[in-house]
């Protein structure tokens, strides 16, 4: 229960930060994508199911407030969370390379599919200008933010896991 609440709180805080504070911190009018960082890191830290639900909730918020159609971001984020979940076996706490690669890849998938589903279907084929104007700058900025945000999420997760283990051993 506590874990669920805290997870929800992390998603909400990232959502609020992204729509208010990071709008002012944008470089070259590009903002980092915090929701992808959260979804992806819960995916490979906690497994497919939790990654999927975190992605689902993040996508719900994004759809309600930023998107055009309810459901598109939900599906996209849920699938990204699920994909990241399958890397749980390869994940170790002290390794920072895998998280960065995974988050980067998720961000790339997010950017490319948003372009394909929203702009390409409208008949807008200026792919490279989107790639170099939005997708890649967003990727770089997101990875920079990951270096900090990921450590915070990791720390919170470690604490929660330690607490869960303690309370589990108490009842044995």
């Amino acid at each position, binding site marked *: 229960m506590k874990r669920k609440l805290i997870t929800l709180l992390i998603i*909400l805080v990232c*959502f*609020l930060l*992204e*729509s*208010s*504070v*990071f*709008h*002012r911190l944008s470089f*070259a*009018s*590009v*903002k980092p*994508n*915090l*929701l992808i960082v959260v979804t992806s890191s819960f995916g490979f830290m906690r*497994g*497919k*199911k939790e990654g*999927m*639900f975190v992605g*689902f909730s993040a996508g*719900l*918020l*994004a759809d*309600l*407030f*930023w*998107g*055009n*159609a*309810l*459901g*598109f971001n*939900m*599906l996209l984020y*849920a*699938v990204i969370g*699920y994909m990241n*979940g399958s890397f749980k076996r390869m994940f170790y706490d002290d390794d920072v390379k895998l998280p960065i690669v995974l988050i980067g890849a998720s961000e790339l998938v997010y950017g490319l599919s*948003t372009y394909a589903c*929203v*702009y390409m279907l409208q008949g*807008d084929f*200026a792919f490279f*200008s*989107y790639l170099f*104007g*939005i997708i890649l700058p*967003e990727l770089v900025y997101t990875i920079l933010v990951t270096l900090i945000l990921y450590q915070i999420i990791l720390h919170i997760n470690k604490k929660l896991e330690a607490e869960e283990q303690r309370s589990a051993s108490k009842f044995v």
Partner: protein
Amino acid sequence: MKNKSQSSFSSKYWLIIISVVCVILLGIERFTDGGGPLRFIAGYTVIPMQEGISYVGRFMSDLSDNFETLDEMKKANEKLQSKVDELTTDNTRLRQEQYELERLRELYKLDENYSDYEKIGAHVIANNGSNWFATFTIDKGTLDGVKVDSNVLAGSGLVGIVTEVGPNYAQVRSIIDDASNVSAMMLSTSDTCMVRGDLELMSDGRLHFEKLPNNDNVVEPGEQVVTSHVSSRFLQGLFIGYVSDIDVDANNLTRSGYITPAVDFSKLQEVLVITTTKQEMTGGEDAGEGE
């Protein structure tokens, strides 16, 4: 081992459920408009938080403004004073013309006065968090008389149009958004054109215009562009910006180019919402026509 395969089966199962739910939602969205109960709940939970954060943000920026040095303030004051003088002379001249206009209007019995629409002020409380759209949320909704298709201004220029409205918030699509199309006209020649937002131009805050007839009327950079009389959603005569570039298209029939908007979209804090929509003004018979 058995336990493991079971859990991976169940997560696959969940993935399928979630995908189906999303696809159904997308389908529903296609046939109805608005998010229904979910948007309603979100309006009462997330919006107050966004309001809180934006309030803190405004407070902080006010605080940092207070630290501006006296010297800068003096310089700004001088500049503003000269501007006031300039505007006062302008104003008297314009007022004279206004009287003249009113008299002529009375003569022509033109009772439609486009210049004083009823407006309400609103704060921008959240921006779009993704880099793909240029929409933002304001803290006024149906309770304050904001409706879908209400036009939104900042300073003197057009900012956008309300696309979605809740009891205490409204979603505004800026005119620099890729999905935005505004029917506009050149102020001096009254030639109509389409002003389109473009994701590539969004970063430098410019707009693209097209379909301006290639006739004898000379349009030069610096020309003012306003919303046109044929637009079905935008009220007539709202200022959009200045022409910065103009070229004759390859077909030799139309001209296109770029517009520098009158509003700085990167620093929007307060906006004005016009509570009368164009449909109401024209009697609503052309509601639902294309954008």
